[in-house]
């Protein structure tokens, strides 16, 4: 089933995601203990982060090693803006706008340089490492933007919590959970919708064959720049959610953060949207549980999972699941449903 067909049946996927989000919003806040609520909010912020790379790399074909640069930039922009302006709704706009703006500048520098994807990957990795080293050394109190001290290695623990729009009341963990659920769902729907539009199809075309796309009149560089900026904005939104469920610190730019999001997309399935989000939840839970049980070092498990998936399940879980199910359906169904199988 080609990517296009996959996306045409997007309507079903979006409806189902809406169901899941709604169920989550209604059931979890009052059923689950507060601790699980906060954790799920964190996992959802990571889910949005995974979506940003799933869109950029899966559909745009742009191998960005340093997606954590936009993630961290969004969180820091939110923290600095919220502390200085006090109005967190405006700060939220900064959280999305600043990384998007930075991506526009960086994207122009990258895409108008005709770089091959590995070089592009390494340069984006360099950018996030530069951010990590710079922010890490802003410990002194000379490093401040307005009233907000960047705090270097300590990060900004005094980041104000997101307030309910147009009020001054900071969101309670339950409200934060609902906001995160809505953000995750709407980002998923946005990505699903984007792919079906003419813009989305053009981006996929550029990924498949940049020269042919240009010979058909598509400005490949501008399309890549556009999807680069959009995915940076989504990563900024994820940074905003993360800033409200954990706290803003240089580790958001670190190599391990950049690695995690790549692992989720690979394990989840390149070219799919739901796969990376599911892999993100599963691996996050596994790391947390392993961290607490302490029987084995989480790195060992994460490392093994990644090696096994890359070598034995190259497509990632979602396509593997789909293939498994198609085989199951073929065996069980006595007369193969022509339409279903042929699609």
């Amino acid at each position, binding site marked *: 089933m080609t990517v296009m067909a996959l996306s045409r049946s997007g309507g079903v996927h979006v409806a189902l995601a809406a169901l899941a989000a709604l169920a989550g919003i209604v059931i979890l806040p009052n059923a689950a203990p507060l601790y699980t609520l906060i954790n799920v909010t964190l996992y959802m912020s990571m889910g949005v982060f995974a979506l940003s790379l799933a869109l950029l790399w899966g559909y745009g074909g742009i*191998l960005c090693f340093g997606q954590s640069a936009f993630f961290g930039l969004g969180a820091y922009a939110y923290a600095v803006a919220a502390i200085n302006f006090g109005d967190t709704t405006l700060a939220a706009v900064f959280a999305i706008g600043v990384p998007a703006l930075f991506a526009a500048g960086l994207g122009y*520098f990258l895409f108008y*340089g*005709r*770089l*091959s*994807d*590995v*070089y592009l*990957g*390494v*340069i984006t*990795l*360099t*950018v996030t*490492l*530069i951010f990590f*080293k*710079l922010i*890490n*050394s802003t410990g002194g109190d000379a490093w401040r933007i307005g009233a907000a001290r960047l705090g270097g290695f300590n990060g900004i623990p005094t980041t104000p919590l997101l307030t309910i729009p147009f009020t001054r009341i900071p969101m309670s963990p339950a409200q934060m959970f609902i906001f995160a659920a809505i953000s995750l769902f709407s980002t998923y729907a946005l990505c699903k919708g984007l792919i079906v539009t003419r813009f989305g199809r053009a981006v996929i075309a550029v990924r498949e064959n940049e020269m042919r796309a240009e010979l058909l009149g598509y400005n490949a560089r501008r399309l890549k720049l556009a999807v680069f900026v959009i995915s940076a904005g989504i990563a900024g939104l994820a940074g905003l959610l993360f800033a409200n469920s954990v706290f803003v610190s240089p580790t958001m730019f670190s*190599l*391990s953060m950049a*690695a995690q999001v*790549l*692992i989720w997309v*690979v394990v989840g399935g390149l070219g799919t949207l739901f796969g990376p989000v599911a892999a993100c939840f599963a691996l996050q839970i596994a790391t947390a549980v392993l961290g607490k049980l302490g029987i*084995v*070092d*989480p*790195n*060992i*498990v*994460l*490392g*093994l*999972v*990644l*090696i096994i998936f*890359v*070598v034995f399940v*190259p497509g990632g879980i979602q396509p593997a699941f789909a293939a498994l199910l198609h085989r199951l359906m073929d065996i069980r169904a006595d007369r193969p449903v022509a339409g279903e199988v042929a699609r």
Partner: protein
Amino acid sequence: MDYFLVVLFQIAGTVGNLALISVGLAVIFGMMRVINLAHGEFIMLGGFAAIFGVQAGINIWIAMLVVAPLSVAFLGIVVERLIMRRLYGRMVDTMLASWGLSLLLIGLATTFFGNRVVGIAAPVGSFQIGTYSLGAYDFVLTGIALAVFSSGYALLRFTPAGLIARATMQNREMASSLGIEPARVYAITFAIGAGLSGLAGGLLAPISGVLPTMGVAYVAKAFITVITGGASVITGTALSSVLLGSINTVSTFLTTPVIGDVALLLAATIFLRILPTGITGRIFKGAP
């Protein structure tokens, strides 16, 4: 005037250091197009091998120059046979698999070697320049780096084995049709690359502590040096080590180590933008 001399010596030290930590990757990534993100961990294991060698009573020089490279080269063979062999040609997959390998090695090292920082004293004394006293060990490193690079160049350029290795890397099918067994060449080349990383780890042990998570600091710098170097593996990496090493040292002296590192990263980014295929994509084209 002494201070200027000291800075010059310091540059030579940093260049030697950068070249050493990059040469292993130059072989594995430069020649084999395998993005080895576990390169930092190969260095770390080289460090531990040297330290355990010294603790077992082996002379420090043999531990660093023989035990460390051989043990990591052996690990290289195992890794190549189990994982990398299935991934040739799929460059992005080699990156992700090696990232998994890096996490796995960090986890294992933390579990078995514990996270206590271990170290051995530098085996060489110091010497004076005017009133300044400098560690002589840095220049031993630079000397060894020069030896490694020149022998590497000679091996690749003038020996039949070098020719076979280069040919196989460029066109695997053609090489096998000429009777060369690509799988064996790949295994040996990967092992040499891993061994060189182990050597770097062994030599770095005395001046910086060895702990399971030390690799992260080296992998980014090594990658950027090799990529800025460009197509020809040995010459390119040597050139970019000199270039980036000097920029790093000068800016560190003028400002702080952090700005020094940032300057290195920025310089590499700009180089890559001007010369998308690295330095030797233009000058010294075709040198090994």
